[in-house]
């Protein structure tokens, strides 16, 4: 039981707690806060694996931009509590155990295959940003340019959608 394992279980517990809280919260703003908790916990897990740049990008982009966008939209639309429409009991009593059983099956299958998977970074080895940038700009240069085009299309789409009907 070394330190990495303890930190892993701690962060994993925080992430699962955030995800469960997203399901159980009634107000969307509290759900957004729970999702932010999940993202920060995942950034901690990325740091544990040694992917420091991805951890920083996760917090800056996901936690600092995408979730802020969600929070803005929730405030703009003044989203209140969820309405109580007819919730079929069958879906509740049958669906949730089935979902848990499916997850348990996948988890058991994964745990049994521990020998054949490549291991994560050895103790203390961090992936340097230089390695990532060499890959990104040399081997993956074409997808990189495509994503910049994608962002341009998204910006134009958002601007068009946000215009008022004049």
């Amino acid at each position, binding site marked *: 039981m*070394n330190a990495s*394992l303890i930190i*892993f279980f701690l962060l*994993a517990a925080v*992430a*699962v707690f955030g*995800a469960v809280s*997203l*399901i159980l919260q009634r107000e*969307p703003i509290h*759900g957004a806060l729970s*999702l932010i908790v*999940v*993202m920060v916990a*995942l950034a901690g*897990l*990325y740091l544990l694996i040694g992917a420091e740049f*991805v951890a920083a*990008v*996760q917090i800056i*982009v*996901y936690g600092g931009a*995408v979730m802020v*966008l*969600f929070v803005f*939209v*929730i405030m703009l*639309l003044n*989203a209140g509590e*969820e*309405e109580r*429409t007819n919730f079929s009991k069958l879906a509740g009593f049958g*669906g*949730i155990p089935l*979902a848990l059983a499916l*997850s348990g099956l*996948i*988890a058991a299958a*994964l*745990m049994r295959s*521990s020998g054949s*998977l*490549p*291991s*994560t970074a050895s103790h203390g080895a961090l992936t340097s940003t230089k*390695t*990532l940038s060499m*890959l*990104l700009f040399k081997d993956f240069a074409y*997808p990189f340019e495509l*994503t910049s085009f*994608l*962002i341009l*299309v*998204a*910006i134009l*789409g*958002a601007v068009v*959608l*946000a215009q008022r009907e004049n």
Partner: protein
Amino acid sequence: MVPTNYYLVLSAILFGLGIVAFVFKRNIITMFMAIELMLNAVNLAFVAFGKPDGQVFVLFVVVVAAAEAAVGLGIIIMTARNRRSLNVERVDLMKL
């Protein structure tokens, strides 16, 4: 050290929780947040193998998720304004 399959199990659990949230919630914005949770679970699976290729792909997934959030939230704002409700069960007819 933490074995790789621990990360994969966590990723599967988070993905499952994202599916449960997507199916059982009725608010459009909460369902969209469940989609983001699923994308994050998949990101964790990519990074768990420790190779830099996975991390580069995670950067692409993050960019796609951000672009999708921008456009998707724009559509949600338009839909909510036209139908005056954020309940996804009210968006069941083409007619307003």
